[in-house]
């Protein structure tokens, strides 16, 4: 087990830059998730740590040692691929023991290690079978078993659950988390699914267009997103964003929306009068009130019952937003609905830069 340091790493394919000056420090035993939309560079970064892609500039250290020049096989890391990449012509047992055979491990020890990993993952009955006879979830476990057997310095996961159906994904998520708790191996996990990121990570690295947007615990990113991208990416249903102007009359700060409505903000928000801003508020923070007392009015456009709660689409003359409530909503489409936007739950970003306004 080891720490992983990414220092000033950039990557270009020819003249096309893909990663810009990434700095990341992963502690020994930490579970870090790289999350972002397709093309943001997260897989590229993972593959650079693995040694499957070259490093254009910067340094990557595993366990304190610079690994830029090391081949993948010399970096002592294990990787779980999205497609599992199981060797089709070998049995499960041979798949899992391949790396040990390469190192000329004596067969007794090999058998021991493989059966220990197999029992941990519930694969004992499958050891003699070939990958094509297994289901998606079983194959995923074999891929993980292959990694565990080596007891490497770090685990790298490249969107391992993307090919599974929703139910299986839930199950495997829990298993991966339990496994990490048991083994405590440093792990880097790449995904585009923010639910996976939130549930699995000790820390999340949100990336967009090759640049690290924010690094923090899941709750950090949820409660204090540093910019518009992170705010929109994390949280489901997605955050509501409205355009507005910050107004400061010396005493009170508020935000004027295009509709003329005014939203009071928390007093320590820093920004100058007339600054164009974007206001974000999560659907779960929109309060549906019962009377229009000091709040806003809209009409119900759509009601989406989810079992756990309900998403209500609210429309006004100038904007539309979504609210998420934990109860049954009996509103009829078209009726009016009052709501409030509490100041403490607002996320305010500068409209030009997208950065969060400091407080």
């Amino acid at each position, binding site marked *: 087990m080891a720490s992983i340091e990414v220092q000033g790493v950039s990557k270009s394919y020819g003249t096309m830059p893909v990663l810009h000056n990434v700095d990341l420090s992963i502690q020994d035993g930490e579970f870090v998730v790289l999350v972002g939309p397709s093309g943001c560079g997260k897989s590229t970064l993972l593959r650079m740590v693995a*040694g499957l892609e070259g490093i254009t500039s910067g340094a990557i250290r595993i366990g304190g040692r610079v690994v830029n020049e090391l081949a993948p096989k010399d970096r002592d890391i294990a990787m779980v*691929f999205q497609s599992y990449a*199981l060797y089709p*012509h070998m049995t499960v047992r041979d798949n899992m023991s391949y*790396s040990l055979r390469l190192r000329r491990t004596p067969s007794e020890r090999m058998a021991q290690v493989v059966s220990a990993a197999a029992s941990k993952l519930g694969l004992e009955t499958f050891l003699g079978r070939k990958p094509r006879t297994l289901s998606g979830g079983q194959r995923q476990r074999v891929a993980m078993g292959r990694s565990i057997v080596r007891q490497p310095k770090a685990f790298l996961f490249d969107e391992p659950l993307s090919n599974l159906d929703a139910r299986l994904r839930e199950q495997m998520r829990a298993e991966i988390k339990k496994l990490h708790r048991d083994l405590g191996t440093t792990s880097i996990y790449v995904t585009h699914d923010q639910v996976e990121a939130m549930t699995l990570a000790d820390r999340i690295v949100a990336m967009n267009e090759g640049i690290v947007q924010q690094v923090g615990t899941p709750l950090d990113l949820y409660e204090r997103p540093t910019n518009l991208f992170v705010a929109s990416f994390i949280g489901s249903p997605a955050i509501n964003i409205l355009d507005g102007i910050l107004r400061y009359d010396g005493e009170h700060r508020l935000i004027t929306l295009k509709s003329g409505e005014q939203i009071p903000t928390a007093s320590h928000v820093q920004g100058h009068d007339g600054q164009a801003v974007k206001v974000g508020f999560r659907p779960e923070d929109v309060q549906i009130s019962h009377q229009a007392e000091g709040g806003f009015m809209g009409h119900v456009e759509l009601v989406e019952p989810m079992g756990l709660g309900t998403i209500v689409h609210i429309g006004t003359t100038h904007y539309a937003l979504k609210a998420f409530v934990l109860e049954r909503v009996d509103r009829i489409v078209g009726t009016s609905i009052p709501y409030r936007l509490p100041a403490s739950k607002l996320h305010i970003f500068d409209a030009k830069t997208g950065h969060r306004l400091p407080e």
Partner: protein
Amino acid sequence: MTPSARSTSYWIVHYGLLAFYVAFALFPLYWLLKVSVTPNDLLYSEGIRLWPSRSSLAHYTFVLAHSDFPLFFKNSVIVSGSTAVVVTLISALSGYAMSRFNFGGKMWLVGLMLVTQMFPLVMLVAPIFKLFAPLGLTNSLTGLVVVYTAFNVPFATFLMQSFFDGIPKDLEEAAMIDGASRFRAFRQIVLPLTLPGIAATLGFVFTAAWSELLFALMLVSKADASTFPVGLLSFVSKFSVDFGQMMAAGVLALIPACLFFLLIQRYLVQGLTAGAVKG
């Protein structure tokens, strides 16, 4: 085509056309066989009959027992077999490189291979002869193998590349992370999965080398290094053509080529499909 139920008239047309194709493909071969069992005296008088009134295996006996044909046959087997194996090895390497790597000069290599398919090989006979003679490669089976290998490597590379394109890169990457060098991953993981491709390439090259006439004729003048196409031509003398014997020799020569080809043609289609869309 949609997997819907088809009408009987469709199937009639379908099988009718196929019957025509099969008949067209097999008829000349059938005729070859027919001539080979027609005794000499009936060759011209019964020329147009579909089967001779009196068939005999005299031609076969002659070819097998009284001519150099068994020697030629053996030489052909050695040359074609060796060429097939060597070409498959070399083109597996280059096909793998074309499939997995993007390297400077790749386009030039493709161009080079295309160009080699384009010029009349006739032109190369004299220069190659001049190059090979001092090296002792004329009148030798080795010389033929060298020449045939060079001729077949371009298409074989293309074939192998198609097969490799059908195998996900993930597998080598997983192996390299597991601790294998790329070459080891190539040997232990990728190659075993391309057995159909290897079969197809072996079969294709064997067939091509088996039928080669020009260089076999020009580079070899001594009987002990001649292959069977040369042997067949020996039945054409200044005065007459021994058709019966030539056809018997032809039928014998056809057997290995046809057998081999029958076995591997399925893999040829498979392999070309794997990389077909990428062209």
